[in-house]
């Protein structure tokens, strides 16, 4: 255990990499997921079908297989990306964007049709009805499912440990290898790190929810 505390900068560095993976892939998945959701709820049926296929395929594929595709199979196509961090973010984005898409879609679908009809009936233009009626309601409904997607992503960054990225899980393996007698303590230390990340995310979500809460 002394080994961990005297090398605590290594622990912090590992968690910094975990958080970098989380932030970068969260941003890219939000962009890609929103785009996919737009495809799925939009009027163009070809895109809607392609979006549905992507989501169903990716959601039923283990994240580990996506990592294998990106890290081991992609170089066979000479599509090699040298940077491990970029590859890790790519795999996490491919996976998470499918879940982001579903969260956003469910948020849009939770707005009842009557709301849109009423806003059209009082003469709102498309942009007005989106801005003042539909999107504010959809955004509120999206927060809880999106938060749980992001929390899952925070935990999923650990899979990168199996592919040579020295983030928190890989670092725990390093410490438990060198200090066989203190394994439970080391495990708890790293678990607390992850719990802090998860709690910060969920506290943020609860805060947003509370702030945007409206009387219904």
């Amino acid at each position, binding site marked *: 255990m002394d080994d961990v505390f005297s090398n605590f900068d290594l622990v912090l560095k590992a968690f910094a990499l975990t958080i970098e993976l989380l932030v970068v892939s969260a941003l890219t998945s939000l962009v890609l997921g929103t785009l996919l959701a737009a495809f799925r709820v939009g009027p163009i049926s070809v895109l809607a079908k392609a979006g549905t296929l992507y989501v169903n395929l990716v959601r039923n594929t283990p994240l580990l297989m996506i990592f294998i595709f990106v890290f081991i199979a992609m170089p066979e196509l000479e599509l090699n990306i040298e940077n491990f961090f970029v590859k890790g973010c790519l795999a996490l984005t491919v996976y998470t964007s499918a879940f982001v898409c579903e969260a956003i879609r469910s948020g849009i679908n939770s707005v009842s049709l009557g709301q849109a009809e009423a806003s059209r009936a009082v003469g709102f233009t498309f942009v007005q009805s989106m801005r003042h009626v539909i999107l504010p309601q959809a955004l509120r409904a999206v927060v809880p499912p999106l938060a749980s997607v992001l929390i899952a992503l925070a935990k999923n960054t650990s899979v990168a440990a199996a592919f040579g990225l020295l983030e928190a899980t890989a670092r725990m393996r390093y410490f*438990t290898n060198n200090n066989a007698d203190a394994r439970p303590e080391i495990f708890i230390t790293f678990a607390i790190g*992850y719990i802090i990340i998860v709690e910060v995310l969920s506290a943020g979500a609860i805060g947003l929810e509370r702030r945007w809460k409206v009387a219904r």
Partner: protein
Amino acid sequence: MSSVLFDNPGPRTRARHKVYSAAAAVALVLVVAGLVWLMYVNGQFAYELWEPFLTPAYIEVMLVDGLLKTLQMAFFSVIFALGLGLVLGVAKMSDHAWVRWPSWGIVEFFRAVPLLLLIIFIFFTFGTGGGIGSFWSVVLGLTLYNGAVLAEVFRAGVNAVPHGQAEAAYAIGMRKSQVMNVVLLPQAVKIMLPAIISQMVVALKDTSLGFYILAPGLTAVGKLIYTEFRNPLPTAIVVTSLYVAANLVLSLIATRVQRRLVGEQKALEAPDMAAGSAV
């Protein structure tokens, strides 16, 4: 098709949509064709690379040592997780604070810790050197994680049973354990079944994490094949198809069961409070 987002399109908009559809279709075809072409140029369609998946001996290995082991791992962990989830879920609803708080802590802990971290810890602490081995390490890790998730599902299911049911049971003089066992749980299980089965899909996917500790299963067989034949892309495609097929079958069963037991009602969703269920 009118939706929240747009009105029924008129003739001009429909014509415009047709143009967009055609453009989108062309773009998608180009992307797929580009991928196939890349595979072709890099010789990924060579017979040697696909040979193991056409050889009966290897197919047997894939199905027996791969798919069957993966399904076994998922099966055992879901069965154990159901027991653990039931115990933790009921304990979380206990009237005694000394039962409620520890179980709340256990549930929150295992829901927030990454499964891979848990599996690595279990394997290198209890699994190696005459320990429980990699298979049971994965099963134990999955049991703890899914048990914590299912505890929430059980709690949500019991809370979804109308209050009057419990009140009526108390009114006719039942004890707490009787109310739970005779009245609440049987009704709750019916509501929870779809959520439980979709948790099985998650468990089935998560068995792949055994890759890290060389546990048996589809990913382990896949690794053996692609290190021997140097064909990671075909192997990844075949293994992924097997996972997707298994998950789709499970989801199909889930829909059937739900329709049979719950009718066309909305599926129960466990409230996500701290940790996400969408893994």
